[in-house]
């Protein structure tokens, strides 16, 4: 069982002090949080991707590479990578590159984005969101698996004899999760490819999660990847804990009441009943987290959202310390009653081993004589030759 955290990288005013961190502070805080996650024994750190204020979550691969250079063990991932508005040719290059730099300690999660305007910023149409996610991922999947790709589609220019470099590390593409809250097409997509499916889970009633996870599991089996209960499922989660549960409620309430997503709406009490948010003692967080299996089945990855709603860095790091303290019990709880045939989340190591070991996937090409010349001159030379 992989347990980790995911961050959306929001720059939010602390409602208790009125102070808003600068972009620089928030960017550096993200790195501190990721390093702390490794220190307390977590398995995964995932960053979101947003292209607008109040977020600092642009350029996820630079962020992950920088964190990767300062960590040893933790898997670095995304939550999510915008497969709709990012050119799949660039995603193929960027994530293969950090796969090499981080010796395989990377995977990624596909998502469609959370704000309408992001589509036109990148020349796309939100009404084509599902179609973009399907076509673009279809191309990305091929670019990582075929050395030379001929491709023609609807949303980007065709490719002729194209080789994406670098080739995936050890001949093994990064593992991919697909994230979606309510779109059955995305559960279907994850199932078709035998990829992982991640449900955000937080901010929503368990019924949404159950519906999506059940569909993914059923279709995973339908497409011949194995029994439904062995499909690769990840869930989000959200908590605020203090040793004394009433202290947790008192301290978190102003953040809850003013939070960008659900603030000024339902009460903290209603929201903790209706969604996975847990505010209380470490024991309460532990029990609630282990109860997610009641409707999602035994699963592979649990990511918590901790740094949001204006919580100061110091508080977030304290939350990580508390999570680290209950981590052994959480792992024990997840292992309890888990049937032997339920797989762990795939890692680079496990995927390479299952493939019979690493292969050098470098596409060796003849040296080019163009470097130092202008592309146009080379082109002219070819035309006249």
């Amino acid at each position, binding site marked *: 069982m992989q347990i980790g955290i995911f961050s959306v990288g929001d720059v939010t005013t602390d409602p208790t002090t009125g102070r808003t961190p600068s972009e620089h502070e928030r960017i550096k805080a993200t790195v501190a949080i990721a390093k702390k996650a490794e220190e307390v024994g977590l398995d995964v750190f995932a960053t979101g991707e947003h292209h607008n204020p109040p977020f600092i979550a642009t350029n996820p691969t630079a962020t992950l590479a920088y964190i990767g250079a300062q960590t040893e063990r933790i898997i670095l991932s995304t939550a999510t990578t915008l497969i709709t508005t990012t050119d799949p040719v660039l995603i193929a290059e960027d994530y293969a590159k950090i796969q090499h730099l981080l010796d395989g300690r990377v995977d990624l999660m596909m998502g469609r984005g959370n704000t309408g305007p992001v589509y036109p910023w990148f020349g796309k149409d939100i009404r084509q969101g599902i179609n973009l996610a399907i076509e673009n991922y279809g191309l990305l999947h091929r670019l990582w698996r075929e050395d030379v790709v001929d491709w023609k589609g*609807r949303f980007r220019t065709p490719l002729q004899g194209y080789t994406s470099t670098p080739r995936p590390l050890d001949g093994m593409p990064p593992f991919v999760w697909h994230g979606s809250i309510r779109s059955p097409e995305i559960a279907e997509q994850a199932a078709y490819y035998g990829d992982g499916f991640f449900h955000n889970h937080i*901010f929503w009633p368990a019924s949404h999660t159950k519906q999506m996870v059940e569909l993914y599991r059923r279709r995973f089996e339908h497409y011949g990847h194995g029994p439904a209960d062995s499909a690769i499922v990840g869930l989000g989660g959200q908590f605020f804990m203090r040793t004394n549960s009433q202290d947790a409620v008192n301290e978190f309430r102003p953040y809850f009441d003013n939070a960008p997503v659900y603030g000024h709406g339902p009460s903290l009490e209603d929201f903790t009943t209706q969604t996975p948010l847990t505010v209380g003692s470490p024991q309460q967080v532990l029990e609630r987290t282990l109860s997610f299996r009641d409707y999602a089945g035994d699963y592979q990855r649990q990511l918590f959202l901790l740094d949001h709603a204006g919580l100061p860095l110091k508080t977030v790091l304290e939350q990580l310390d508390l999570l680290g303290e209950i981590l052994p019990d959480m792992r024990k709880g997840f292992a309890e009653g888990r049937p032997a045939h339920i797989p762990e989340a795939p890692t680079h190591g496990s995927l390479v081993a299952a493939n019979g070991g690493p292969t050098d996937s470098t596409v060796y090409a003849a040296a080019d004589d163009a470097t130092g010349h202008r592309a146009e001159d080379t082109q002219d030379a070819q035309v006249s030759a």
Partner: protein
Amino acid sequence: MTSVVVVSAGLSSPSSTRLLADRLAAATTEALGDVEVEVEVTGIELRDLAHQLTDHLLTGFAGPELARAIEQVREADGLIVVTPVFSASYSGLFKTFFDVLEAGLLDGKPVLVAATAGTARHSLVLEHALRPLFAYLHAVVVPTGVFAATDDFGDAGLDVRITRAARELANAIPTDGVDAGRSGTTAAPLARRTVAEAFDDPTPFELLLKQASAA
């Protein structure tokens, strides 16, 4: 059993809006009784759901009581909807309830529209506000809408309009025992796919792939 759901957006208790809703429900029950159809009438008071409706706008999902009310509307064979007139239109609370319904939920559903106000000067609100709203939602609005100003209560003309509208609603509700579709209405076979249907019977990925790249 035929089900009629009455959605009432009155704010005081008891309100004239609720009073009109009750009379429309009784007249509809009677009209269906005349053709020997048993009716189960369920009342939904939006005032009781006001907090959950606002929460739904902010969170994107329904609290338990609101979710139950939405399911009752989904299952209804016919709807009676009654709003007070606020600033020349339906009230915000009334509109919010129909704003949070899943797309397609009212497709083909027979609806009787009604409104109350302090003065008869608002009587065309049914035609310029309620009818377009339910046309947009693909409901089938019966020809007679019922408007009641305060001084209409006690006027025999209101009874005539209530009876006529109720008969029209009763006629629009299929009663031959043949299930014409998920909402039991004749127009239902043209209804949009519900979320539940999309999960029960997902579009196969090969088809999604083909559709994605089809210009």
